[in-house]
């Protein structure tokens, strides 16, 4: 039995690694359609990765070992995060290794490493990007924590599997606080994953870059790993959102037959398709903010989450 759970855990992680670029490709496709452009193929991210893996890595002369290890560390943290987040089932062994707060810590580790690597070569854009990335990070983290606080208050647990179990047990519970938290979460998701309105993932203008500016010195397989980690991060955030707000379909409560697993996979695919389209819509409808509007944007997310908290406490107090 233990062996089977480990196999299922492995399967979940491999699935996450495999479809994360697909999710990114789907968003890009939706975005192109909504903006009346001809869309790239759905498998374009995979082609990109294959091309990058084949190329020779060009490395700056003064690059330190930190610079070369960082892509692997990034990839490692994101894969571990995918193992921890209950995207398909709740009774998997890695899920207990970390709760939601530790998950935030894991994302912070990735952020610190990529920022340090960006400063390693000592170019103007790299350090600029690192500074901006860390700024977005420290603004987004409290908002994300407040969102999670909302969920914890409902279920009394910071472990994501317990959260999902709780929602599945109280299927028709709709707490108004969650609506606020969900909006705040989407705002944080956009900021943390370098999407419009905070950052533009497809920009070619170095001065406005945040995330991309840090990757300018990376090439070939290193860049491929970093890009893959980025798409995994987006996938992970989406899965956290599903676990917090729409956990239906995730195999919970010890249901681990093949039917439940297939249902969970189908539900995940459906949710990803809808979420990807919604993200593309949001991105198409909004414009990129100036970098110094970012604090206002994230403060709004924070206040929304706090509002949710107060709503919950008011209702709970009554």
């Amino acid at each position, binding site marked *: 039995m233990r062996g089977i759970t480990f196999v299922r855990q492995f399967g979940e992680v491999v699935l996450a690694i495999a479809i994360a670029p697909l999710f990114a490709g789907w968003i890009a496709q939706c975005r192109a359609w909504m903006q009346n452009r001809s869309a790239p193929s759905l498998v374009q991210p995979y082609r990109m990765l294959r091309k990058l893996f*084949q190329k020779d*890595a060009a*490395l*700056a*002369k*003064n690059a*330190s070992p*930190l610079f070369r290890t960082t892509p*692997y560390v990034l*990839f*490692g943290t994101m*894969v*571990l995060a995918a193992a921890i987040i209950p995207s398909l089932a709740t009774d998997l062994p890695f899920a*207990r*290794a*970390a709760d939601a*707060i*530790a998950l935030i*810590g*894991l994302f*912070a*580790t990735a*952020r*610190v490493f990529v*920022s*340090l690597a960006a*400063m*390693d070569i*000592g*170019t*103007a*854009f*790299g*350090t600029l990007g*690192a*500074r901006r990335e*860390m*700024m977005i*990070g*420290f*603004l987004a*983290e*409290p908002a994300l*924590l*407040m969102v999670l606080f909302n969920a914890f*208050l409902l279920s*009394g*647990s*910071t*472990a994501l599997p*317990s959260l999902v179990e709780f929602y599945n047990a109280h299927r028709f519970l709709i707490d108004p606080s969650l609506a606020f938290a969900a909006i705040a979460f989407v705002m944080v998701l956009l900021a943390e994953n370098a999407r419009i309105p905070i950052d533009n993932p497809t920009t070619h203008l*170095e001065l406005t870059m945040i995330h991309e500016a840090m990757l*300018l*010195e990376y090439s070939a397989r290193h860049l491929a790993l970093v890009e893959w980690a980025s798409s995994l991060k987006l996938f992970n955030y989406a899965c956290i959102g599903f676990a917090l707000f729409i956990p239906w379909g995730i195999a919970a409560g010890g249901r681990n037959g093949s039917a439940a697993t297939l249902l969970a996979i189908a539900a995940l695919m459906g949710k990803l398709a809808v979420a990807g389209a919604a993200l593309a819509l949001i991105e198409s409808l909004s414009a990129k903010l100036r970098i110094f509007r970012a604090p206002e944007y994230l403060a709004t997310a924070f206040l929304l989450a*706090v509002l949710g*908290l*107060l709503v919950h*406490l008011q209702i*709970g*107090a009554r």
Partner: protein
Amino acid sequence: MNVHFLISGWPGHALPSLLLIIAAWVVIGLAGLLRPHSLRFVAHLLFPLGALGCLCVALLAGTFLVSGHEPEVLVLPLGLPDLPFHTRLDALSGFFLLLLGLAGAGISTFAAGYFRSGEGTAPALLGLQYHVFLASMAVVILADDAYLFMVAWETMALSSYFLVTSQHRIPDIRRAGFLYLIMAHVGAICILLSFGVMQGGSWQFTFDAMRGASLAPVWATTAIVLALLGFGAKAGLVPMHVWLPEAHPAAPSPVSAMMSGLMLKTAIYGMLRISFDLLHVRYWQWGVLMLALGLFSALFGAIFAAVQTDMKRLLAYSSIENVGLIFTGIGLAALFEASNMRLFAALALTAALVHALNHALFKSLLFLATGSVLHATKQRSLGKLGGLIRRMPWVATLALIGTLSIAGLPPLNGFVSEWLLLQSFLFTPQLPHAFINMLVPLGAAALALTAALAAYVMVKFYGVIFLGQPREASLVEAHDANWLERLGLGWLALGCVLIGILPQLALKAAGAVTGKLLSETISPGFSIWLIAPVTPEHASYSALIFLAGITAVIGIAFVLVRILAHGRIRRTAAWDCGYPWQTSRMQDTAEGFGQPIRHIFGTFFRMERHLPSPSDKSPHYRIHIEDKLWRAIYLPIGRGVQRLADVVSVLQGGRLSIYLLYSFLTLLGLLVFVL
């Protein structure tokens, strides 16, 4: 032997051995005077002996904690007639001695390789001051009456003052030392008054008597506020923090490490001793007060650390932040304890204790690393450093561990205590005070903001010093630390990693303290894999699985990339978007890294900025950032004191006849009073 030993409980002998080690430290310090100018004798023989003493202290304290013995008491035949020194070893003092021993061993080892001849005070004097400082801190922790406590406290303040001003020929350092001395004494007076209040009219100054004294609510609160002022001044709580950013950069690096890593913790110890042990936390308002001060200090320290351009000042502000976090934990614990929620109080107190231990390790590590950088480059300003990871790989690697720890990243130790602290915040909605319930989650948000800002600060610290291109040509000649320094740094880094991946060790030590103070420990049945402070369903964290998972993924990814793709590398010039003439001046500076913070938190600072005009031939950009509290609180007090002194100086005529007249009038007055 007329030494009167009074040992209660099981005949453990930890306390006499500890006192012997403390005496040995003083002897080691004095031994240096035999050959006052021999650096080899003092540094290579005496400092390692001192480090050995630290190890023994850690070992003794550790076994005492784990064995769970009853407190040991010993009355020393020293002190005044009828007022002997009382000492006591219990779980709380055991924990702080463990902390002192663990971090002290690393610092002393590093110090053995650090001090150079011809820098300020003679080596033997430095050795004496250093070891007296160490011994007095241990005595503070072991003292069991107000008298011995205050004597040791003052010895600690004075010996550290001399250490801070060891390069006393530089006026700035003398000024920093003076500020430190003033703050230390204002704090000491507050502590003395607090003890005076706590003895409650019985004139018994042993802690035992104070534990039993029944104080009126007003007096108990007065005592706690005085203690908060006094210990806050030593620990660096805002607004009593002003001496830290001045004194830490002035002191030699091992001394900064001792002060920040260890001395601040004696203040934490004192606060815990008074609030939890002697006064038994009676009112939840005390908890709210400590919580508010702690959170504000944490945020304040993090924001100011982010805009510093001197690496040791940056670390000093970061110490203020970390002390704030520790006080946040203590405040939460007091809040829970006063509301009769023992388990959650134990959780919060554990978080505070573990964070104190962690801070002792990683902050010492980073201060010592700045010492190595300072020796290698002669630069303290972040604007003149850079790229040292290539010249000083040992220091850079070990400092990276410290950096990641202090930034609160899993799976290192800083994360463990921050995680515990956030967990304890999650229980605040269960408090019986509706209003506090609503406000406290915001405290959690402030905590998250502080933790994220700390990461920002540490990326700046590490990135500007060790990464990028060297900002000065002279940095190319920088050399790595010597083997004693590496050993000291390595010991502290090992501590960070070990507590990070096996937090059970630190939790067990802290559990011994909460078990005695609150008669509750957080879930004693941790497995080797997992810590779950309340129940595994509620929350769990496993650093080992974390580390194993990441390592496995990295290893598999590396092998797969090599097998399926290739490992070819071409070394070229940096790309930098095709711009070929880049220089090290084009990198972001420490000032640049502070810019978003100055922009977002502008209300915290007083800024004077000088921008060059477009037509300047030799443009200069200058920015001066000042603490608003300095002008709001300290300068008015200084002016007030000056004015008072001016008024009083009218009496000081300078002529003998006038002074005789004063004496005569005083005598007359006394005669009238007597008759």
